C-alpha cells in the first residue's frame, strides 16, 4: 500500500470537551458552593435572623444569635476543607487504582484511624486533640496501604471486588480490636465515642489549624499528579510506553490521596462515600481528563459535605444528625447504583 493516510482526522471538539462548557460548569459549582456556605452560616438548630448573621460576620458576638453564627463559621470552613479533601482524594484513588469503587470509607481507612486513636489513648497516654491528628493520620495511611496491598495481590490486580472485600473485612477486624481495647477501659470510652462519631460539629479554628498543613500538602501533591493519572488511566504498560514512571507516579499520587483522607478523618471523624460519589458526578460534567476532574472534585466535594452538614442540622431539630451519617445515607444508594451499572466482568 502507499503511504496515503486515509484515516479521518479526529474532530477536536469530539475528543476534548470544549473549555467553554467546563468553565461554565466550574462557575456553577462555585456558585453552589458559595450558596451552601452562606446557608451553613445562616441555618442551624437555632433560627437566626439575617441581620444578626451580618452583624456576626462583622465581628460582633454580643447576642446569643450572633454567638451561634460565630460558632458556625469555623464549622463551615472545616466542612469545606474536609469535603474538598475527601472529594479530591476519592478522585485520585479512583485514578490510581483504576477502580470505580475506590473510596476512603470502602477501603477501611476510617476504622484504621479509629484503631490508631484508641490504641494511642489506651496505651500511650495520648490526651491532646493535637496528638489525635497525627495518630489518626498514621492509622489511616497504614490501613489504606494495607488494604490496597492485600486487595491487589493475586490475579487481576486490584479489582473492585477484591478491594471492597479486603476493605470490608479489614474494617470488621479493626472494629473488633477497637472494642477489645475500649471495653475494659470505661474512662476512655466516652472520649473516644465523641471522636468516633466525629462530624464537623465541634469545629474550632484551632482544630482547623492542626490539619491545614497536612491538607495543604495533600492538595498540592494530588493536583500535581493529574497529568500522570491521565497516563495511568490507559494501563500500566501503556503508561510506561508513554514515558511515565509508573511506580513513582502511582506512589506519589497515592501518598497525596492518603494524606488527604487521613487528615480529613482526623479532623472530622469517619465520613464515608463523599470520595466515591463526587468524582463520579464530576466525570459527567468534565469528562475523564484528570486535570479538570480533580479540581472539580474538590469544589463539588466541599459543596456536598457542607450541604450534607446543613441538612443534618435541619432534619432532626433541635438535635443534629452527624454529617457522616447523612453522607452514608446519600452515598450507599449511589454505590449500589454504580455496582448495578457495571458489567459483571468488570467486577
Amino acid at each position, binding site marked *: 500500500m502507499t503511504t496515503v493516510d486515509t484515516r479521518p482526522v479526529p474532530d477536536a471538539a469530539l475528543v476534548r470537551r470544549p473549555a467553554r462548557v467546563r468553565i461554565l460548569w466550574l462557575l456553577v459549582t462555585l456558585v453552589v458552593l458559595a450558596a451552601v456556605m452562606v446557608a451553613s452560616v445562616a441555618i442551624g438548630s437555632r433560627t437566626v435572623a439575617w441581620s444578626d448573621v451580618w452583624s456576626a460576620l462583622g465581628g460582633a458576638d454580643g447576642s446569643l444569635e450572633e454567638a451561634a453564627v460565630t460558632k458556625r463559621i469555623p464549622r463551615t470552613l472545616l466542612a469545606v476543607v474536609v469535603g474538598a479533601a475527601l472529594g479530591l482524594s476519592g478522585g485520585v484513588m479512583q485514578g490510581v487504582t483504576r477502580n470505580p*469503587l475506590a473510596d476512603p*470509607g*470502602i477501603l477501611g481507612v476510617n476504622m484504621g484511624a479509629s484503631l490508631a486513636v484508641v490504641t494511642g489513648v489506651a496505651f500511650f497516654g495520648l490526651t491532646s486533640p493535637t496528638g489525635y491528628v497525627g495518630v489518626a493520620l498514621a492509622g489511616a495511611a497504614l490501613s489504606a496501604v494495607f488494604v490496597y496491598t*492485600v*486487595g491487589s*495481590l*493475586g*490475579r*487481576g490486580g486490584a479489582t*473492585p*471486588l*477484591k478491594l*471492597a*472485600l*479486603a476493605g*470490608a*473485612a*479489614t474494617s*470488621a*477486624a*479493626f*472494629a*473488633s*480490636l477497637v*472494642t*477489645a481495647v475500649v*471495653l*475494659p477501659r470505661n474512662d476512655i470510652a466516652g472520649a473516644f*465515642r465523641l471522636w*468516633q*462519631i466525629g462530624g464537623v460539629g465541634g469545629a474550632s479554628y484551632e482544630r482547623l489549624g492542626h490539619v491545614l498543613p497536612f491538607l495543604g500538602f495533600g492538595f498540592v501533591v494530588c493536583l500535581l499528579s493529574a497529568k500522570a493519572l491521565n497516563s495511568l488511566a490507559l494501563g500500566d504498560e501503556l503508561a510506561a510506553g508513554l514515558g511515565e514512571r509508573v511506580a513513582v507516579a502511582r506512589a506519589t499520587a497515592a501518598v497525596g490521596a492518603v494524606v488527604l483522607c487521613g487528615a480529613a478523618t482526623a479532623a472530622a471523624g469517619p465520613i*464515608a*462515600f463523599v470520595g466515591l460519589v463526587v468524582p463520579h458526578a464530576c466525570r459527567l460534567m468534565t469528562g475523564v481528563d484528570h486535570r479538570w476532574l480533580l479540581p472539580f472534585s474538590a469544589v463539588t466535594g466541599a459543596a456536598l459535605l457542607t450541604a450534607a452538614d446543613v441538612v443534618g442540622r435541619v432534619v432532626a431539630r433541635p*438535635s443534629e*444528625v*452527624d454529617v*457522616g*451519617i447523612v453522607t*452514608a*445515607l446519600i452515598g*450507599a*444508594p449511589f*454505590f*449500589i447504583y454504580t*455496582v*448495578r451499572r*457495571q458489567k*459483571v466482568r468488570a*467486577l
Partner: protein
Amino acid sequence: MSVPAVTRPSVLRDVTRGRVRNATHRRLVVLTLVVLVLAGFAVTLMAGQTFYPPRDVVRVVLGEQVPGASFTVGRLRLPRAVLAVVAGFSFGMAGVTFQTMLRNPLASPDIIGISSGASAAAAIAIVTLSLDEIQVSVLAIVAALVVALVVYGLAFRDGVVGTRLILIGIGISAMLDSVTSYVLSRAAEWDLQEAMRWLTGSLNGVSWDQTVPALLALAVLAPVLLSQARDLSAMQLGDDTASALGVRVERTRITVIVAAVCLIAFATAAAGPIAFVAFLSGPIAARLVGGGGSLLVPAGLVGALLVLAADFAGQFAFDTRFPVGVVTGVLGAPYLVYLIVRTHRAGGSI
C-alpha cells in the same frame, strides 16, 4: 491414539482407592472434631469459679438434684454451653454455605450486610423503642431476612451474579452501620451498655429462653442445607457448569439463602453477631478436610469449637471478662490477613 473402549483395571483401582482414602480422611476429621466439641462442652460445664467433678455434672444433666451444682451447672453453665455449640454450629454452617455459593472465602454473612441488618434493628429496638429481650430478637431476625432479600433483589439482573451480590451487600452494610452508630450516639448510658453487649456478641447471662429457639432453628434448617449440599458443590464450578450438571441454580440459591439467613438470624438473636465465626469456620474446615465433599458439617463443628473455646478464654484467660465476640474478633483479625494473602496469591476461591 484412540479412546480405549475398556478402562484399564489399574486406573479403576486407583480411582476407587483415591475415593476411599478421601472418605476415610474426612470421617477421621469429622470424628476428631466431634470429640473436641464434646470435650470443650464438658470442660465448660465442669470448670468455672467452682469446679464440679464429671460425676456431678453427669448427674445434673440427667436431671438429678445436686446441691450447688444443680443451679450453677444446670441453670448457668448448661444453657450457655449449649448455646455456644448451637450458635457456633449455625454460624459455621451458614457461613460456609455463603462462601461456597458465592465462590469467595470473604463473602461471609458478616461482610455482606446480614449481620449489620440484625445489629441495626437491635440497636433501634433497644435504644429508640426500648423493647424487651424477646421483641429485640424477633426484630433482629426479621431485619436479617429483609436485608438479605433486599440485597438479593438489588443484585438481581438477568440472574444473580456472586460478585454483584457481595458488593451490594457491602454497600448496604455500610449504610446500616451508619444507622447503628447514629442510634448509639443518641443512646443513654444504660441503653448503650445493653446495646453494646448485644452488638459485640456475648453469652453472658444466657438462659434457656434464648437457647431453645436457636436450637430448634438449627434442628429444622440444618437438614434443609444438608439436602442441598451436593448441588452446592456443583455450584462451586460456576453457574453454567452447575446448570449443565442438572442443578436448578436459581432455585437452589434461593433455598440455600433463606435457610442460611434464618440460621444466622436465630443464632444472632440469641448470642449477638459473634464476629468472624461464620467467616473463619469454612476456610479452617476446608484446610482440615482437604478437597472433595461438602464442608457443611465440618464447618459447623469448627464453628462450635471456636465459640466454645473463645467463650472460655474470654471468661477466664484475662483480668477483664471479655464477651466472646471480642475474643473471636481479635483472633480472627490475623487469620483474616493470612487468608486474604494466601487466597489471592492462588487467585482462587474457598
